[in-house]
């Protein structure tokens, strides 16, 4: 009879267990499964009602198909590869643009600051689709950009603008004293950034940068409007041949979801590793 003497502690511990249950991984996975199941069921019954002819058995060949000498990647698989490559190239460009624009905005150069500000305002206040049309239909003929280069530039510029704000916030999160210590041992501005400021701001910047990588993969789908070969374009092409729009769009959606989820998990790993040192 030593325990349970505090009144109300029973109710409190019950509330705690409840809260723990809601927060638990199993619960969230279960909840997620129920939601997905509801969506699928609704879609299914809806499709049934309109007499849709499901042909799921024809989908796997677009991922992986058997040939005489082994296996070959289907259109969706190669499309995914192209999407990832496009995103990776454009994201590298976006990181460079973002860093340069952020450093310009934080510099003492009046012109540099103004240019960076103007770039930011123009890009941020324009729909991505319009930006893509500008690069392809205007930049294309003038500078001779092909559709792939126009896509990379458009995505790089668009996400570079967003990343520049991430970099700026990360750099500003490092205290003034760090600058002063770096300067007072005679470092240049560039050395201070490289050895002192940026390494400390990575910790702050890593989560939003990854979020932006996920966004990049998602927004790369937009280049399908100028028929650059990638996952969404592959999906469109298959549908125009086969009319299996429900199956293919479901499949494409799941592929995007799987990729972005994997990326998020990978990043939360990274975050934990970076969080150790202070």
């Amino acid at each position, binding site marked *: 009879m030593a325990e349970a003497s505090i009144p109300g502690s029973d109710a409190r511990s019950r509330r705690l267990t409840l809260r723990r249950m809601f927060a638990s991984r199993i619960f969230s996975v279960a909840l997620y499964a129920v939601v997905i199941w509801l969506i699928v069921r609704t879609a299914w019954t809806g499709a049934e009602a309109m007499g849709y002819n499901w042909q799921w058995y024809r989908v796997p060949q677009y991922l992986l198909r058997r040939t005489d000498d082994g296996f070959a990647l289907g259109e969706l698989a190669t499309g995914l590869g192209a999407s990832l490559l496009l995103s990776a190239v454009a994201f590298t460009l976006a990181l460079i643009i973002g860093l340069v624009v952020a450093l310009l905005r934080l510099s003492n150069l009046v012109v540099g600051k103004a240019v960076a500000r103007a770039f930011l305002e123009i890009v941020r206040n324009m729909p991505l689709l319009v930006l893509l049309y500008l690069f392809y239909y205007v930049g294309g003929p003038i500078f001779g950009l092909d559709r792939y280069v126009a896509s990379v530039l458009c995505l790089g510029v668009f996400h570079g603008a967003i990343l520049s704000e991430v970099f700026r916030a990360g750099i500003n999160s490092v205290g003034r*004293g*760090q600058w*002063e*210590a*770096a*300067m*007072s*041992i*005679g*470092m*240049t501005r560039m*050395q201070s950034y490289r*050895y*002192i400021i940026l*390494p*400390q701001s990575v910790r702050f910047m890593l989560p939003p940068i990854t979020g932006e990588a996920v966004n990049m993969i998602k927004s790369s789908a937009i280049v399908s409007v100028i028929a650059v070969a990638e996952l969404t374009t592959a999906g469109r092409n298959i549908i125009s041949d086969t009319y299996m729009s429900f199956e293919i769009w479901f499949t494409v959606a799941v592929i995007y979801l799987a990729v972005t989820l994997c990326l998020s998990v990978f990043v939360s790993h990274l975050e934990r590793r970076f969080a150790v*040192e*202070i």
Partner: protein
Amino acid sequence: MTARPIIEIRNLGKFYDGFEALKDINLTVLSGEKVVVCGPSGSGKSTLIRCINRLEEHSSGRMIVDGIELTEETKDIRAVRREVGMVFQQFNLFPHMTVLENLTIGPMRVRKIPKAEAEARARKYLARVHIPEQADKYPAQLSGGQQQRVAIARSLCMEPRIMLFDEPTSALDPEMINEVLDVMVELAGTGMTMVVVTHEMGFARKVADRMVFMERGEIVEVAPPDVFFTAPKSERCRAFLDQILEH
């Protein structure tokens, strides 16, 4: 041999948009001299010593350090900063680096000294500040007194000709103040030129060649410590001393 001037401050003025933080400051510090600056909070002590390595830009007058006049010229500014060490109230160690890395980054990147040599030098100065065993720790794992001694060693690793201290013990718990002051007294014994902003009058009596008293952005009194502590000329200085020597 007569000591030559190493810091020459001529009619120096400093405005922070409209507010006059320094007024017509004149001071010459000789090579090897120890100058202790004191005065009430807000009197411009930090501003003055931060002008010496141009962490603050002066608005008027001249600042000549080790023969180089500080102007807009960034090359000159860095040349001066290489020769002028600075110790801050808040330590400002680099938290993402070990103690050893904190000490070697300047020599390696600014002085372009090879890594092995920089590390040997770092260990020498860590021993000088009595914490040779902390080389592989991160700053956050050290006590305040240890952190400040690392900060002093970090400056010394650049082998500067002048050391500036801005209230180096003000952020420390009382029991750690002496370990830092002891290191500074030993440093004074090596002949280093030192400009120290502090209210530690015991330290000042021990090492200062000259005392400087500031108030409202002006130098009110400059005197050797024996005169300064026993017979200050200005009334304001006497009042200030009475106040801080009380406790």
